[in-house]
């Protein structure tokens, strides 16, 4: 089972990548993936105020407890700054 993780803005700078495939264990949730990413790339959490930034699965905002499915597109969003 794997998901595709997209990186934008400062998260793209920290990770050094635009996207990647990541294997995930069955039953993994959004927050589990975030913890794994931060363990590998502590810089992702550098300017974070809460425990996890807003997340999106398949281009829709979702919560930390959302279960991940094979092939999902997952994104953690640094502070948005449109307009």
């Amino acid at each position, binding site marked *: 089972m794997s998901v595709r993780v*997209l990186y*934008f*803005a*400062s998260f*793209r*700078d*920290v990770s*050094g990548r635009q996207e990647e495939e990541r294997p995930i264990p069955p039953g993994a949730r959004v927050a589990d993936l975030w913890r794994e990413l931060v363990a590998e790339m502590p810089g992702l959490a*550098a*300017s974070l*105020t809460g425990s996890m930034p807003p997340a*999106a699965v398949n*281009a*829709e*905002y979702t919560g930390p407890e959302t279960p991940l499915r094979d092939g999902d597109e997952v*994104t953690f*969003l*640094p*502070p*948005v*700054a*449109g*307009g």
Partner: protein
Amino acid sequence: MYLKEQPLDVAALLAGVRHSDGGVCVFLGVVRNENAGRPTEKIEYQAYGAMAESEIGRIAAGLAREWPDTQVAIRHRVGELSVGEVAVAIVASAPHRAEAFAACRAAIDRIKATVPIWKREFHPDGTTEWLDPSAATPSRSPTAPLPR
């Protein structure tokens, strides 16, 4: 498509809304030459395209529900913009000015709050930073190498 890689055509956007209405309100967000006291040379807007399109669509649908008589057109630039260029354009057309102003204001406020678009400032000294509107002052940390 709400996101555009080319300069926004405000006249065309205006022409696209009803003209029989009593009030038309236009908001243009323009690239400033400084931010928090630091000069800005240019701005890069990066978007999570698919999600930004659907989020703006959701905002537009919400505006249409709340102000049923008001027509709202929205465009947002992505890519590199020079000082003075229009980054976002909103046109709201309504029978009376109150609804036009209200819908226009709500549109830009909601866009800023939730649409996955990010803004990187380029300074004359060669440093760059991703803007964090939620921070009291812009974060100065990610100030180094340009993306690949």
